[in-house]
């Protein structure tokens, strides 16, 4: 489903964030990207979201080279690739319900679908009853759940999670990890970028290890192993 083919990303003047990385991810897989800060984990996710374009190489999603998408095609692509971020990236002027609903509104879904799916998604992440709260009125763990609920309603093919537990305590981190596993069980492929050893070792799924922009290991049942 997702192929990174010899992808290199450099930033001026001579910073190599990713160096000829080749990765293949199948439908429904759960893949963790691990490595130190600056290893290239977030770069892979930014390239996946087409926030940036690779310096060289190609990225294929369902056989289509995503680097060829123009401005009009990008929104449709991004609706299939949901994302969760370390800093949550919620819309501060919208409440919990509206934050989740926004993804559906942007996709042109009907009000009927929105009023069915949003409460269901909030129920899955355990936020029923908090629909009217604003981001500044909920905890970090709850914010991340809102972000996951927003990703859920998109019914994405892939969910890219960039350090989703980075700002959370261990208990909330475990909750978020379990939610991601639950979503994966429903059929969505998960790409989790993290340097949280506990999370990786608890998941026991495929682990791709990065170091200085290169893929140095790719194990089906990996563990956190950074030199």
């Amino acid at each position: 489903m997702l192929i990174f083919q010899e992808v290199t990303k450099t930033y001026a003047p001579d910073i190599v964030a990713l160096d000829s990385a080749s990765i293949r991810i199948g439908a429904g897989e759960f893949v963790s990207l691990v490595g130190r800060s600056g290893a290239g984990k977030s770069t892979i996710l930014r390239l996946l979201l087409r926030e940036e374009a690779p310096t060289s190489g190609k990225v294929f999603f369902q056989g289509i080279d995503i680097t060829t998408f123009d401005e009009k095609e990008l929104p449709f692509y991004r609706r299939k690739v949901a994302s969760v971020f370390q800093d949550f990236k919620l819309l501060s002027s919208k409440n919990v319900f509206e934050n989740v609903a926004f993804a559906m509104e942007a996709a042109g879904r009907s009000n009927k679908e929105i009023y069915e799916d949003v409460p269901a998604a909030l129920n899955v992440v355990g936020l029923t009853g908090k629909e009217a709260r604003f981001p500044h009125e909920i905890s970090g763990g709850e914010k991340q759940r809102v972000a996951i609920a927003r990703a859920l309603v998109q019914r994405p093919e892939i969910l890219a999670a960039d350090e989703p537990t980075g700002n959370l305590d261990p208990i909330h981190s475990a909750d978020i990890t379990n939610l991601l596993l639950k979503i994966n069980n429903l059929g969505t492929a998960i790409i989790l970028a993290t340097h949280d050893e506990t999370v990786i070792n608890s998941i026991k799924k495929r682990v791709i290890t990065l170091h200085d922009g290169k893929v140095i290991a790719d194990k089906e049942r990996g563990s956190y192993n950074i030199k």
Partner: protein
Amino acid sequence: MVNLLRILSNSWKNFSRNIWLSVATLFMMFTALATIGGLVLFNASLDTFITGLKDKVDVSVYFADVAEEEDIVVVKSVLERRDDVSTVRYISKNEALDIFAQRHSNNQILLESLEELDGNPLQASLNIRVHNPEKFEDVVNFLENSSTSSLIDTINFKENQKVIESITSIAASVNRAGVLFTIILASLVIFVTLNTIRLAIYTARDELHIMKLVGASNWFARAPFVVTGAMYGLASGLIVILFTYLGTWLLHSQVSLIFADIDFYGYFIANIWSFSAIIIVSGVVMGAGSSYFAVRRYIKV
């Protein structure tokens, strides 16, 4: 239709949930539109002043005693048919005498001297005003070369020519200064408004970025901000119109003591629809346009 309602709903939420930002932006736009409204009134008063100035300039054609009233009336009607002539007033010998007597009513010696004379020494005349003082020379040349030139004794154009030229020059300078002042002030006002809106949009840059990452198209991310900008323009425009009405109504008696020829309140009422249209259209265009361009850099994700 659903998307339009969503955009309007999101715009209203932008407006109402960032109340202090909205109030600050409204205040800046109010100031900008009040300046534009002031410029409209200023230019109207300038036009009145220039027209008043030009109206003070006239030329009198004095007819010889042999000219009959019917002949003078014919000359009057010929002049009135000219496009460059504004008004022509006939002053008969008797009316001229009455005007003279009234003007010099305090000078008994002069009045007694007049009575000593046989007949009325004053001449019948035509008092001519033109739309543009530069056209006086054309009118005078026409009279001097016409078939009725033998009836004409004197035309006081040459004596007044310097005054006429000075007034014409002053009017042109005032007009040019007014235009320049308007352009400069309006440009400043638009610049300040654009930057106010840009600052407001800057505070929403993260939100725009997030909207694009979750799959919003450019127009879906941008439209609520453009509509909110238009709402700022419309709301501040309505406030300006209300303040202008109240201001000109409350102050018009004081203003007319200083500027007798200028009636801001009267002008406002007579032109309320065009004035309101200028203010509201300016506000909406500035608000929506500024938002459109300010959002552009943050949706390139």
